[in-house]
């Protein structure tokens, strides 16, 4: 079954797909967004950590192997808005050295451009979205326009940790966060209820349902749920995409023709679709002449650090992503023996339950003691998280599994292990975090286990078609009318949260597609 041809079909309605959709629809292109999950409105976003689990994957689509899990289900998203529906909105920028790691330090990879190229896209995105922060106080911040909104609330929770950082000779700044401290462009300010990862129905936290998808739809883009894309459909010569194949909720197969295809189905699904799209001309998968589709998978090694304080922290109040920020350890060699960066997100709003809730901070406690712990923690617990860079390694990868999904298609299999550098950064963060927390006055301080945040790589960008999958505009080297959206195009992970940067790279890519439409669609 074939539907009417469109100019651009976008696979995925999350952070990247929504930026492409808005940019291209506003340029007058006919745009169809195919979303593998369900449709969703703001009124579906219940304030409940239990109900919030609907925003994440549950059906098995990824087989995780290797020493360290990639935590696909927890990090990815399902339905309109994708993973950005449950993200915390912490939006720092990559630093210039993150993009020139090979040139400057002889380590990792270079991006095909320097920071200054991406800077105007960061500035445009933050103007669109509304980021709260204090650019001057954020002493590590790369050049860029000041934040459009003042910093968010800092309550006793944040002030307590700030004392600990100061006692250790470390700096803190307001966290750069895509949560509105003031009303902005018709969206209300946050009321600091801490329901960020349950999905923010007021629109105070930027997510695709309140920023780019409404713009895309207003310009005529169509969103279609329950449309599970299985492969890119290529022309007979194998040099152009002519559309995508997808299955609807009833399992009926469809072909959607398009002049151009944007894959924005998340870091794991994008390579899976490319690898599943093998043809006679491309037996190892579409856009894979380099053999690098799926390679250089990256994640951030993270650790939560907790402290029990003698005074009330009011930890139930605030933003889940935190109140304060620190990048004193951003220098690539700041931790002895470890290459890479790390950062702190400080004073995370807490809920009693769920994976990152109060109870899971001490999984060893049970019985009556757990009730006691819950009551004490609800008043006195403090929490922050360190995020550590991992290094790009082609052995960390997405490949096709022998397991099949409900449509009979090979699932993705991830193979992952953090680098020694990442583990050293993680260990130093554990030690430093406990010391900071004690210095802040905690009567007890401890850290959680190794966790994984953010997933990047797998379709990396580069200047050379033999060493990368896409070019600087996220256009595949092999197929000129096939683009990739999302953190999958990052050649390095930095230690910063990926959502702001993937918005910026997607905007750069979408504007290139818009401005070169006649030659790309020809």
């Amino acid at each position, binding site marked *: 079954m074939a539907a009417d041809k469109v100019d651009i079909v976008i696979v995925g309605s999350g952070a990247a797909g929504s930026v492409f959709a808005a940019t291209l629809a506003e340029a007058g292109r006919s745009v169809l967004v195919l979303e593998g999950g369900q449709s969703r409105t703001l009124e579906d976003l219940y*304030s409940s950590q239990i109900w919030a689990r609907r925003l994440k994957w549950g059906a098995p689509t990824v087989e995780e192997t290797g020493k360290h899990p990639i935590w696909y289900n927890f990090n990815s998203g399902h339905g309109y808005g994708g993973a950005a529906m449950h993200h915390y909105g912490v939006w720092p920028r990559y630093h210039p050295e993150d993009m020139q790691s090979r040139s400057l330090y002889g380590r990792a990879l270079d991006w095909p451009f320097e920071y200054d190229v991406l800077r105007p896209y960061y500035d445009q995105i933050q103007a669109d979205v509304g980021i709260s922060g204090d650019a001057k106080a954020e002493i590590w911040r790369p050049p860029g326009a000041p934040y459009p909104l003042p910093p968010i609330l800092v309550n006793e929770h944040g002030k307590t940790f700030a004392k600990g950082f100061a006692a250790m000779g470390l700096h803190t700044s307001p966290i750069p966060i895509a949560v509105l401290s003031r009303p902005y462009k*018709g969206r209300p300010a946050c009321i600091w209820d801490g329901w960020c990862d349950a999905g923010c129905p007021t629109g105070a936290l930027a997510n695709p349902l309140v920023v780019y998808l409404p713009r895309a739809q207003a310009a005529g883009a169509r969103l279609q749920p329950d449309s599970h894309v299985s492969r890119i459909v290529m022309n007979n010569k194998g040099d152009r995409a002519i559309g995508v194949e997808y299955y609807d909720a009833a399992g009926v197969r469809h072909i959607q023709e398009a002049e151009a295809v944007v894959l924005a189905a998340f870091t794991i699904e994008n390579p899976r679709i490319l690898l599943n799209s093998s043809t006679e001309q491309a037996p190892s998968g579409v856009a894979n002449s380099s053999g690098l589709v799926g390679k250089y998978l990256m994640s951030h090694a993270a650790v939560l650090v907790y402290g029990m304080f003698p005074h009330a922290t009011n930890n139930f109040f605030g933003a889940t992503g935190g109140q304060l920020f620190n990048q004193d350890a951003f220098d690539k060699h700041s931790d002895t023996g470890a290459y890479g960066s790390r950062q702190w997100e400080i004073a995370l709003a807490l*809920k009693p339950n769920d994976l990152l809730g109060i109870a899971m901070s001490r999984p060893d406690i049970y019985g009556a003691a757990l*009730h006691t712990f819950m009551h004490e923690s*609800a008043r006195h617990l403090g929490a922050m998280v360190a995020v550590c860079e991992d290094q790009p390694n082609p052995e960390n990868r997405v490949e096709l599994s022998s397991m099949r999904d409900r449509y009979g298609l090979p699932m993705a299999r991830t193979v992952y292990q953090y680098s020694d550098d990442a583990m050293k950064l993680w260990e130093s963060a554990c030690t430093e975090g406990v010391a900071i927390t004690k210095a802040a006055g905690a009567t007890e301080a401890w850290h959680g286990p190794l966790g994984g945040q953010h997933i990047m790589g797998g379709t990396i960008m580069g200047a050379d078609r033999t060493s990368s999958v896409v070019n600087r505009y996220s256009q595949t080297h092999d197929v000129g009318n096939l683009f990739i959206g999302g953190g999958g195009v990052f050649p390095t992970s930095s230690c910063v949260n990926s959502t702001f940067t993937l918005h910026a790279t997607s905007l750069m890519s979408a504007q290139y597609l818009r401005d070169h439409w006649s030659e790309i669609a020809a």
Partner: protein
Amino acid sequence: MPLNDINRRHFVRNTGMGLLTFTVAGIATPLTPQAAHTQGVPFNRLSPEDAALLAAFADHLLPGAAAAGVAHFVDHQLGVDPQECLLMCKYFPAIKAPFENFYRGGLEALRKTVSADHSKPFEVLNTDQKNAVTDSVWQGTATGWSGPPPPLFYMMVRGDAVDVVYGTKEGFDRLSVPYMAHIMPAENW
């Protein structure tokens, strides 16, 4: 609806809380899991023995979980499409849908380890004996355990217990923590 019309007042609803549909005497009946527990409503996915063991283990991990209906909560969610399932286990890479296999395997392994060590069911052990079993599960040293990783099973059941006791508006009230809902879910789960 324009975003500037969206505010907290709009979203907070006074809907009936915590009602799930259980089948009682062949009739679909809206009940809270607590009421289903009290009335002894039959289970759909778990056997009565597994449900009893799950409730007892969860209640030992967090007293009050059985009365809050943890077994009915889990049983109900095991009957839901994995994508819509509200159990925390869906996050974990080592636990694949259908999640029923994870719970059945863990409960069977727990039953066997208790039998090997104490020759009687978990439900009738004294507190010290239950603590010994629980510690061995959490520490991964449970005798003859054959099933999902025991610490993972411990954490998931403990998480379910925390969900039903503290993860709801009533649970927040127990902790004197303001719930501050934008949209109150019509059901607790």
